[in-house]
Every structure is written in C-alpha cells, then in structure tokens.
C-alpha cells in the first residue's frame, strides 16, 4: 500500500509531509507512517483558527490498536480540516499524499519550513 514519497513535498522527522502553496500549506502523514500505524480508524484535530507550533503535538491519529500523537511539521494557523476523514479515516492509508490529507495551514512567518527534509533526505532516513 506504500506510495513513494513525492518529490515536491517537504518532510519532518515525525513522518509528516507539507505541500506548500504560497503562504498556505497542506499537511498529512507519510505512507511510511501510515503503514507503520496500520488501518487508521480516527483522526482528532483542532478547530480552524487554532495556532500550531512546529514539532508540537497538535492532534491525535488512531489505528485499530493504537493512539498516536500528530506533530505539527510547521508553525501556523489551522484554516481547514479534511472533513472526509470523519467518515473515511482509511483514506489516510489508501491515499496519504492525496485524498488522505489532514489539514490546511496558513504559514506563520517563522514557519520552520527550512528545517524540513526534502524527498531524497526523507527516503534516506527511512531506508533500512
């Protein structure tokens, strides 16, 4: 079920990805993380308007057997949540970089984006 990690994204050590679109970003978890967690059954996120801090825990993602924290890959303000995950959390497993996106964020000035890995670095970090 793994998809290869897209080249146009940035990645955090905690296996989140960021797709930048000007001053906005879309975030999610990588296929590596989704495979590790197994079948996702629930995602808990803060309401739009919430400020999130890079590397801070900002939500929870639950698989059948386990509860895991979600860590913000960037600093900013939550602007939109993926409502599809309410009824279909399994989208995170089947399409982690597409339909399984988790939240949209308006980037803070000091978003911390530069501290993230590019695709090659992330691939290397998860190899072996």
């Amino acid at each position: 079920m793994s998809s290869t990690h897209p080249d146009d994204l940035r990645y955090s050590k905690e296996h989140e990805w960021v797709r930048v679109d000007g001053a906005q970003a879309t975030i999610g978890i990588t296929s590596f993380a989704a495979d590790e967690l197994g079948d996702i059954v629930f995602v808990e996120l803060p309401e739009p308007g919430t400020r999130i801090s890079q590397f801070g825990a900002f939500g929870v993602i639950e698989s059948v057997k386990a509860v895991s924290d979600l860590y913000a890959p960037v600093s900013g303000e939550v602007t939109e949540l993926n409502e599809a995950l309410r009824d279909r959390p399994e989208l995170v497993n089947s399409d982690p970089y597409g339909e399984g996106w988790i939240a949209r964020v308006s980037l803070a000035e000091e978003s911390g984006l530069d501290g993230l890995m590019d695709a090659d670095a992330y691939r290397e970090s998860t190899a072996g």
Partner: protein
Amino acid sequence: MTVGELRRTPLHDQHEALGARMVPFAGWAMPVQYGGIVDEHRTVRSAVGLFDLSHMGEILVAGPEALAFTRYAVASDPGTLEPGQAQYSMLCAEDGGIIDDLIVYRTDEGYLVVCNAANRDAVVAHLEALRGRGDFDTRLEDRSDRTALLAPQGPNAAALLADLTDLDLGALGYYRSLRGEVAGIECLVARTGYTGEDGFELFCDARRAPALWDALMAAGERHGLKPAGLGARDTLRLEAGMPLYGNELTREVNPYEANLGRVVKLEKGEFVGRAALASVQQTGPQRKLVGLVMRDNAVARGGYPIRIDGEEAGVVTSGTASPTLGEKIAMAYVPVAAAAPGADVEVIVRERPYRAEQVKLPFYKRPRPEAG
C-alpha cells in the same frame, strides 16, 4: 524482552514468508496482522480467515479420577459433557476471582484443558497444586509444546475443511469435537472459536503444523481464505461480545460481574471458589459488564474512565472501531445500579467526556439460516 528472546510457534517461517508483522505477545512472537487488521476481520466475517493459535496452552487431565479432579478445579460441570463435547469454563481462586477462562474438551484420553498463552504457567501450577493437595488419582500432561492449534474461522470454513477431510462435518455441532485426518494429518477437530462466526479449531502435533497450514492455505484459495492475525482476533471477539482475559477478566473479577454466571454450576458439588461464588450469586455482583456504542465521536479504549451523573464510576475494559458495525464500540464495567441498556454514560477520553449508550451484548450475531 527482545524479539530474540521470544518463543516461536511451529508456524513462524510461514508468517515471515507471508510478510506478517510480528509482535511480542505473552512471551511469543505472534502475527498481529498480515495485510491489514480491517481486511482480515472482514475476510473472517465474509469468507474464512486462518489463525495460528499455537501459543495457547493444552493440558490433559487423565487417569481414574480425571473427571472428579476437573469438576473440582473448574467452575462449570464437565460431568455433563458427552464424549467429544466441550464447554467454556473458568478456573477460579478461593475468593471467586478468575485465574483464567478456558475450554474443557472431553476426549478419548480424558479432559483436555485449553487455556490462554499468558496464563499457561499459572494454570499448570494451580492444577498441580490442587491435584497434590486433594490427592486425586490423576495425572496432568502439559502438551502445549507438542501441540499446534490452527483455527479456520468464517462462513466458508466448513466448505474449506470438507475439501481436506472425510470427517462428517455436518454431524459436528457447535462445541463438539472429533478425531480424524485433515489433509492426511491427525487432528482433534473442534467446532469452537472466538470470532462469532462458524469455524473450527484444529489441534495437531506441532511437527505437522507447517504441512497443515500449507494445505489449508492452498485449499483455501478457492474459498477466499486469508491468514488472520491477533489484531483481527481481538476486533472479532469484541464485536461478538466475548471477554478477553487481561481486559474483561482478571483475578479481581468474578464470573457474575462478567455476565458469566451461566457458566458457574454451584449445584454440582464442591469446587474451588464455590463458597465465595455462592455468596456473590446470593447478593448479586456490585458491578456489571456492559456494551457501549459511542454516540459522540471518539474511540473508547481499555483503561478509560466512565462517568455517570457527573461521578467517576466504572472503567472501559476494551474498545475499538467496529469494522462490521461502522461504529465505535466498547465493553466496560459500571455499577450494577447504573447498568441499563439504552442508558447513557460518559467515557473520558484525553480528559474530555464523550457520550456513549449502553447496549446489550453481543454487538454482532452472525446471520443464521431461517429454521425450516
């Protein structure tokens, strides 16, 4: 314990070859999933899944006083068992607390006690101590290491087995067992399981287990068979309202609290825990195991507190997202006065309250053919 120190079942190589995710369980390396828990769960409900349960304990009670001893040790009455018949039972301590839940089979060799992997040592020690103290003319054989246990479970399980055996499966009723060959391998074939579906548990010599697994997997292809791990085993039994030792059942729980009063046969005569259990039965238990369906969106999990009328009063014992029902379900202990299907409670999840409705167990009952 590192992965290297874990015990392996005879089917370890099979699991690795299938790409199973292996996890430590009761000191064993066991497959939690192969392709995915939800997919394996759905396969058991709609076709057939194959479980490796070889980590479980099998203890034979044999000798002239085998029945008397077994009747004394367990809470149920094995004296009612016909040849080949099995019953769900429990070992209780003197105070009525549950040491393990288990299945007792009446076989041609005596009484076979099948217990949880995590409790095997405790069960053997307890039975040995009882045997010695009571001076029963019986011998106990711990056959766990020599015995493998494979369980095909699901609506297609009987059709699958029929491809591999001449045994008359139509005549093998629920909680009955027969000795015979499956794929040419000598087995005790039991119509028992922990999924809420039709299914079988096949006990065979550990050395023949790989061949039996391979034969079931090969024949299973045309029946939609997939291997299924402990993750699916847990979600299946939870939907079926079945308790898990370590969650719903512990040394601090008596059978009446866990809705297992029907298993206790006080009238059979003296057995370990009888006085304490009779007393609970008289006065009634203080708390009761209930089913919960979350009405606010959250997953309830074992250990989460329950709040009733603003007061903390109970605890969740198991919970998950039910693949079959599409709802978040759980089992919990609540004070007996508060136990009522239809009544709401609150489950505290990460310090916030979420509403749940009490429901009668089981959550899921398999569809039965209409009576003739």
